[in-house]
């Protein structure tokens, strides 16, 4: 991102040349949990990007900046202050990762909205060679209280059928 923060993603794409519709998922959970969807999506002719918003994955020891890299947090469900296990921390950071975020409101955080916008404009359009033609559809799951369990936005490339599936973990 422009502010130097690294956002990590897994990319699944059809094993074929050409441009494909891109489905971008931003999840507050472990991005590897989207593997099944990524593989199935690629088999149907989509490029699927499973991305963790800033703060979900702890920064590397090399010092890659992350917006949130805490080892402790206030558990939002109980309000009690205590040290968290590693798994709990990741889970928790999906909910309360930034000062200006309340409850996992990925779309509600100005920083996250900026990240998402940059992903559309730069990552997708340049690295995946997808034309900038605007978001066409959104899937929201369990949107009710601001917790964004799954967010998809899609851009439209040219239409091709897939000849297979390619899994690309090179994007971290």
């Amino acid at each position, binding site marked *: 991102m422009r502010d130097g923060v690294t956002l990590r993603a897994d990319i699944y794409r059809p094993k074929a040349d050409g441009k494909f519709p891109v489905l971008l998922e931003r999840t507050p959970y472990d991005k590897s949990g989207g593997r099944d969807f990524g593989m199935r999506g690629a088999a149907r002719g989509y490029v699927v990007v499973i991305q963790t918003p800033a703060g979900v994955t702890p920064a590397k020891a090399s010092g890659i900046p992350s917006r949130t890299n805490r080892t402790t947090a206030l558990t939002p469900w109980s309000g009690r202050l205590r040290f968290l296990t590693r798994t709990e921390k990741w889970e928790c950071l999906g909910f309360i990762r930034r000062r200006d975020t309340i409850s996992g409101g990925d779309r509600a955080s100005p920083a996250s909205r900026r990240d998402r916008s940059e992903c559309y404009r730069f990552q997708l359009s340049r690295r995946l060679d997808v034309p900038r033609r605007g978001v066409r559809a959104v*899937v929201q799951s*369990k949107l009710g*209280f601001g917790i964004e369990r799954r967010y998809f936005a899609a851009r439209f490339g040219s239409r091709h059928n897939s000849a297979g599936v390619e899994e690309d973990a090179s994007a971290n």
Partner: protein
Amino acid sequence: MRGVPPAKSLAPYYADWLAHPNYDEYWKALSIEEHYSQIQVPVFNIADWYDIFLGGSLRNYQLLKTNGGSEAARKGQRLLIGIGGMPEARKNGRSATWILARKAPFDVDGITLDWYDAIFKGVKNAFAAGSKCGFL
């Protein structure tokens, strides 16, 4: 709590929450209900009957239908309510929703891809011909 840093240094946003006990501009800026008019694209809402967020999903569907920012957003959205939900307090290691979900598998990934097939590829599946609300 000895040895634990003060809450303000760990979670400064928590102090912000406490500073805004009422529904003021701070919360309005974060609430989707204040921003339906900015949604311009069709939305596929997925909820669960026994999920604590069901009420919010239904409300989003209803309000987006009237307040969406475009014709596509107002008329193109779909709502699917599946069985199951967020795990609640468990007894004997299993929750009621877990048992229900096991008895009625819900292929949310496949249904989601069907939605995209209908939108992007013009596939004549259940989304193209079906009703706007679905229940499993």
